[in-house]
C-alpha cells in the first residue's frame, strides 16, 4: 500500500526522530512511503490567528502537493484535523472546495490509519516502563480519534498504561496561545505535569508534537525526569 507522508513542519524541523519512527513503523507494517518534497505546513498557525488569506495560500499549496496521493498519513492529530477542515474553509469556492474535500477524505492521523485502514492493533513493539497518554484536544474532540492510540498502546510489550487524571483538559499549547497568553498557558501546562507526576509515570506519550513540545519543554525547564515520547516512537520501539 502506498502512503503519502505529511510529516508536519514541526517534525520536519524539530523532531526528525518522530518522522523517522513514522517511516520505519509504516514500512514495517508493509507500506511504501512517498514523501512529497514540496510539503510545508497545514496553515494552522495563520488560520488560528485569524489570517485566513495567508492560511489559504498554504492550504492550496498543500492540496496541490498531495493531489496525487492515495492515502495521506500524518503523525499529528491536530494537523490531520486541519486538513479535514479544508472543505469547510473553501466552502463555496467552486475550484478549491472539491479539491479540498478530496484531500480531507484521504487524510488519516497515524494511529487512526494503522487501526482503521491497516486493521492492525499489535505492531510488535516493546518498551519497558510505566506510561500515560495525553489525549490531545483536536485529535480527540474534533478529529474524533479516541480509541486508536489506546488500542495500539495496549499491545506494546512491557508497557504499563496508566490513566491520566483530568485527561480531558488542554495542556495549554493552543499554537500561538502558548506565547500570546503565556501566563495562562503556564498554569495549564503545570497542572498537566502535576497530574502526570501524580501517577508516577516514566513516560508521557502523545500523538501531537505541538502538545509534546509544550509539555516536554516545560518538563525540561523544571528538570523533571519524565520522558516525553511521540506515539510513533513508542510503536517503533523494539
Amino acid at each position: 500500500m502506498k502512503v503519502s507522508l505529511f510529516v508536519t513542519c514541526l517534525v520536519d524541523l524539530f523532531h526528525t526522530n518522530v518522522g523517522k519512527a513514522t517511516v520505519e513503523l509504516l514500512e514495517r507494517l508493509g507500506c511504501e512511503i512517498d514523501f512529497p518534497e514540496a510539503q510545508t505546513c497545514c496553515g494552522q498557525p495563520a488560520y488560528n490567528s485569524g489570517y485566513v488569506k495567508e492560511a489559504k495560500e498554504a492550504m492550496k499549496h498543500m492540496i496541490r502537493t498531495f493531489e496525487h496521493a492515495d492515502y495521506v498519513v500524518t503523525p499529528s492529530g491536530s494537523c490531520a484535523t486541519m486538513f479535514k477542515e479544508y472543505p469547510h474553509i473553501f466552502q463555496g469556492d467552486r475550484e478549491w472546495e472539491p479539491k479540498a474535500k478530496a484531500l480531507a477524505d484521504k487524510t488519516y492521523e497515524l494511529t487512526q490509519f494503522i487501526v482503521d485502514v491497516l486493521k492492525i492493533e499489535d505492531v510488535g513493539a516493546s518498551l519497558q516502563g510505566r506510561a500515560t497518554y495525553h489525549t490531545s484536544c483536536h485529535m480527540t474532540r474534533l478529529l474524533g480519534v479516541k480509541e486508536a492510540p489506546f488500542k495500539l498502546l495496549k499491545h506494546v510489550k512491557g508497557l504499563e498504561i496508566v490513566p491520566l487524571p483530568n485527561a480531558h483538559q488542554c495542556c495549554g499549547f493552543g499554537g500561538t496561545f502558548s506565547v500570546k497568553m503565556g501566563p495562562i498557558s503556564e498554569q495549564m501546562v503545570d497542572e498537566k505535569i502535576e497530574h502526570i507526576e501524580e501517577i508516577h509515570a516514566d513516560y508521557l506519550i502523545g500523538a501531537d508534537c505541538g502538545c509534546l513540545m509544550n509539555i516536554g519543554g516545560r518538563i525540561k525547564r523544571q528538570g523533571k525526569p519524565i520522558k516525553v515520547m511521540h506515539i510513533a516512537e513508542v510503536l517503533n520501539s523494539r
Partner: protein
Amino acid sequence: MPMKIGNANFHERVETNLHNTFMRGAVAGAQERLHTRRLEAAKELGNWEEWRALGEEIRQHTLENLDYYLMQLSENVAKRGGHVFFAQTAEEANNYIRDVVIRKKAKKIVKSKSMVTEEINLNAVLEAAGCEVIETDLGEYILQIDDHDPPSHIVAPALHKNKEQIRDVFREKLGYKQTEKPEELALHARKTLRREYLTADIGITGCNFAIAESGSITLVTNEGNADLVTALPKTQITVMGMERIVPTFEEMEVLVSLLTRSAVGQKLTSYITVLTGPRDEGDVDGPEEFHLVIVDNGRSNILGTEFQPVLQCIRCAACVNVCPVYRHIGGHSYGSIYSGPIGAVLSPLLGGYDDYKELPYASSLCAACTEACPVKIPLHELLLKHRQVIVEREGKAPISEKLAMKAFGLGAASSFFYKFGSKVAPSALAPFTNDDRISKGPGPLKAWTEIREFPAPNKERFRDWFREHQKGGGK
C-alpha cells in the same frame, strides 16, 4: 452592574486573578463537581447527542423565525392583560422600567436572578430613582451585600468565593454570628429575605424561556425565590433578551431538560415556574400588573451574521464549567459579566472590540466548550471568526504579528522559501542554542522560552534523512 467590569486591561486582570488562590481553589473545585455531574446527568437521559441535535434545531428554527415568534409572544401577553415593551437599547429598557416604578410610587423592589438586567445596569438606574433593590438569588444576594462585587459566572455568580469568605461578608454586613456551614448561611439569608418579599412593591425577574404560543414566561431556579418575587408584589416586571423565546411548551420542555442537566447536572431544578400574565379572577396570588420588557441591546445586529449561532445560547454555563482558561483566571478576568467561552464570544459583539479585543485570544481552541454546549454552538469556531474580524476588518492586530503572518504565507505557500528557511534556521538560531535546546529565544521565541525550553532545529531535517533513507532502498 454594567456589562463591563472595571477599567484594568485584560492582562492586568489576569495577573491579579492568577494570584488569587482562594478564587482558583473555589473555581477548580466547582468545575470538577459540575463536570462530573453534567456527564452523569447526560448519560442518565440517554441519547445525549440526539437531544443536543434537537436543542440546536429548536434554537436555530426559533432564531430564523424570531420576528414571527416575538410578534406571537407579544400578542399573547397582551391578550392576557400584560404589557409588552420592545427596548432597542439598554437605556430604553431602563427608562421604561423606571417609569413603571415611578408611576407605582415603588420604594422597594425584589429581584430574582437575571443576567440581562446586569447587562443593562438596571439596579443602578432604579437605585438612582430612589428605590431599594434587593437581589433574592443567594449568589446575587451575597455579591450585592459585598459592595456590589461583580458576578464571575453566569449561573453561579458568587462561584469565586468560598464559604469562609461568604461567612465573613455576612458577619460584616449582616451581623451574622454563626459558622461557615452553607446550611446556616442559607437559612440566615432566607430569614432576612422573607421580610423583603412581603414588603416589596415590585418584583423583577429575568426569563429563561418565553413561550410564544401562550405568552408565558419560564423561570428555572433551585431556591424558589423567583416564585416569591412573582407571587407577592403587586407589580411584576420580567426582562428578557430578545432571543430567549421558544415556540411552544413542547420545545420549552426539551430546552429546560438540556439546561438543568448542563448547568448543574440535575434532571430538573427544584423549581420550574411557568407564569402567564397578571393574576386572573379567582387566582389566589400573582401580580395585578405584568410587564414584559424585551431587550435587543445589540442582539439584532448579530442576527443574520456569521455570529448568529451565539444567540442559540440558553445560558447554562456548561462551556464555562469545562473551560481550562476560565479554570485558572476566573470570571472577573474577562472584564465582562459574561465570562468563559460564551463571554469571550458574546462580549465583543455586545460591548465592542475596544473593550474586549483580547477575549477571543483567551482560548487555546481546545474545543471543550463546543463539545459541552447542549445546543451545539460552535464556540471555538466563533472565537476564530472574531480573530479573523480583528485582523481583517478591525485592523487591530499588532504589526509584528502581521509581518510574521505575511512571512508565514510566503514560506508555507512556497516550497522554495520553506526549504530555504528551514535549511538556514539551525545556523540562524545557533547563537541561542545550547545542546539540543534554546532556553532564551530571540523575537517570537522569547515568550515561549520564558516558560519552557524550545527544541533547537535539527541540522538534519526529516527531509534530508528521508532522501538518504530512500537511497538506501527504504525498507
